[in-house]
């Protein structure tokens, strides 16, 4: 987890601030931490090895920036390299000049092909296409029925030959059917199969040779471990893959398989599945998966934004106060103002690690406005020592801020809780402190 990696790196590099250049010697421990993090995220052992060597080469000799710690700097280099390895930007699907465009989904048993076929169809329809869903999994019991039901739910046509045991025949016939019924995309749902099952791999080759799919997408489970390289490599060399869809990313898997698959196939990940509902499907964002593999939310953009807007010195002072629990309502107000400078609150909060776990608890923009108004209506003394705020002061503050005494009470209680939390946050660095401190809602 990021908390772990970041914390580790902070510790590893505690004594390194402003030490000049990154060297093999002073990077060694940090890179070991990164290596562990990648392995814990299920990135293939060999891929990790190459990657670390590459990062080391890249980082060597760089100046340690005055403004950030070497730990943060290594994380940044690692992250940037990961993003680059993942392909930089999301890649769209290709379409044939002569319809129907054939998209074939292949993968291991249970990776999520059938659901993905339906999601992809829905996604394409939303972009103006007219897909046909083709049920070519004649092996798994009720697999054809499953796709038919999903197609019905989408009110979209599907094709199969009832009772047929011949996937190649079904697919060939489906293309004719697509032409006749003016469907411009045919999505083939094939049976799950092992990459080492020669007979079933040959079947895929037959379908490929007969239909010449524009896209052959490998559907892979985000929870896959070290075997991801073997699987992806076999499917790619034997069937030929043009892209990847990563499923079940709505869980807590770190998704290191994405990096492994990308490295061995060189093909882009095009979509991700993020839930069981048919709209839980999204374009792939290399930067997000990179952060995820490192387990760190989008903390890097946050660091960048923070560096651009928050006065470094002041931030350090605030952090110091946070740690010593001398953080006052005055400081809190200032923190809010700085946060607001960084952009819309929900966007900023989405980038803070750990916030994703607090779904539904995020403070709303309007709450922040209220909180600010309440603090603004306090006297300096009250801001420094909130415990002096009793009944009549509360009434005055509520009146002055256009809120109610209950609102004031809530803020004071939250502030108290926050101070308590600060003690726990102490270990976690100021970014997390920011996240914790902002947990304003009742």
């Amino acid at each position, binding site marked *: 987890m990021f908390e772990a990696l970041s914390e580790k790196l902070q510790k590893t590099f505690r004594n390194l601030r402003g030490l000049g250049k990154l060297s093999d010697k002073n990077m060694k421990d940090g890179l070991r931490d990164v290596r*562990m993090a990648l*392995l*814990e*995220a*299920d990135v*293939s*052992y060999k891929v990790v090895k190459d990657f670390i060597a590459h990062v080391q080469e890249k980082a060597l000799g760089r100046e340690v920036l005055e403004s950030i710690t070497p730990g943060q700097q290594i994380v940044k280099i690692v992250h940037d390299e990961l993003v680059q390895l993942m392909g930089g930007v999301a890649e769209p699907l290709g379409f044939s000049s002569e319809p129907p465009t054939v998209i074939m989904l292949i993968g*291991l*048993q*249970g*990776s*999520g092909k059938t659901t993905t076929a339906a999601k992809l169809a829905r996604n394409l329809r939303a972009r103006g296409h007219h897909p046909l869903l083709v049920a070519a999994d*004649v*092996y*798994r*019991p*009720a*697999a054809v*029925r*499953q796709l*038919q*039901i*999903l197609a019905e*739910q989408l009110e979209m046509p599907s094709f199969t030959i009832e009772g047929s*045991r011949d996937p190649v025949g079904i697919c060939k016939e489906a293309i004719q059917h697509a032409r006749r019924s003016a469907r411009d995309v045919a999505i083939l749902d094939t049976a799950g199969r*092992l*990459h*080492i*099952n*020669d*007979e*079933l791999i040959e079947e895929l080759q037959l379908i490929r040779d007969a239909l010449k799919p524009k896209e052959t997408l490998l559907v892979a*489970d985000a*929870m*896959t*471990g*070290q*075997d*991801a390289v*073997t*699987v992806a490599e076999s499917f790619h060399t034997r069937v030929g893959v043009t892209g990847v869809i990563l499923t*079940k990313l*709505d*869980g*807590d*898997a*770190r998704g*290191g*398989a994405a990096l492994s698959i990308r490295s061995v196939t060189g093909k882009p990940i095009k979509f991700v599945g993020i839930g*069981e509902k048919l709209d839980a499907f999204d374009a792939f964002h290399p930067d997000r998966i990179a952060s995820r593999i490192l387990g760190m939310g989008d903390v890097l953009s946050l660091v960048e934004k923070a560096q651009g807007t928050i006065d470094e010195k002041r931030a350090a002072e605030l952090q110091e106060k946070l740690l010593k629990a001398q953080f006052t309502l005055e400081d809190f107000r200032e923190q809010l103002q700085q946060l607001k400078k960084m952009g819309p609150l929900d966007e900023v909060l989405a980038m803070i690690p750990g916030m994703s776990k607090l779904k539904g608890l995020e403070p709303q923009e309007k709450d922040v406005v209220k909180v600010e108004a309440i603090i603004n209506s306090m006297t300096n003394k009250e801001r420094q020592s909130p415990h002096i705020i009793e009944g009549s002061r509360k009434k005055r503050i509520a009146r002055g801020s256009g809120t109610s005494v209950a609102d004031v009470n809530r803020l004071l209680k939250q502030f108290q809780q926050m101070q308590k939390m600060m003690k726990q946050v102490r270990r976690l660095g100021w970014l997390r402190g920011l996240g914790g401190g902002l947990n304003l809602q009742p």
Partner: protein
Amino acid sequence: MGEKNRFGIIARLRSQLSKAREGFAAKVRSLLRRGKIDEGIFEELEAALIQADMGVNTTSELVEKMRNRAKDDKLTDAEQLYSVLEEELISLLSRPAGVEPKPVQPVGPRVTLMIGVNGVGKTTTIGKLANMHRQDEKKVLIAAADTFRAAAIEQLEIWANRSSADLVKHKSGADPAAVAYDALAAAIARKCDYLIIDTAGRLHTKTNLMEELKKIKRVLGKLDPTAPHEILMVLDATTGQNALSQARLFTEALGITGIVLTKLDGTAKGGIVVAIQQEFGIPVKYIGVGESLDDLKPFHPDEFVKALFED
């Protein structure tokens, strides 16, 4: 492809399975049998264990242990190290369950609840398990409590037919707890030996869906306070470190009595069960080695470990 044809494939798969394992075994053995024990051996050992999905922590611990054993027992020959590692793994995997299935007198049938994330092989395993019990001439009832996934009930129905077990089902979208309750009532009335309950795949991180499982467990208890007697988490052998999180959260919500490790007919080693056993004390009970009725085997630690290291 018919059932007949399939068996041909299964036979081939089996040979491929041992081929894949040979590869791993050969690797480990060749490196371990290289002669003298040196630092390089421990590094390569680390690589092999991590590549089997044992995870960084378990691997480090094992390698550390091997290092100490080498020192304490004054091992010089690398091959000795191999037997020590094998011993170590077997003893780890043979540990009794942290949560033993209740040794009780069930009111009626022995009730097994099958749980796990999406697509790991729950429904298929139920078909195979029912078949296993049927071979012992036991009376088996299956409950179709995956009322969520499209055509899940139809899929289970086919497996019930194949294994000639009875099935209790409601309509798609029905309350899974109600299905489980009715099934247990029916199984008691019909004097079944076993009730196996299929559930919808769910990610362990979804609290509402975990609540649904707890509810199933609760209503079973109304008819038989000792039920369910077995809660099996089905785990796909290709799963990496996330399996630890699955084991943790399913255990917290329900308590797991064992693991079924499926898809061992592929190239994945399933080494994460070592980490799970070590961290949570949850034993593997069965392994899945294919898609046919008879492709479920009881788990034997020695065979599992030997299969990793031997031809």
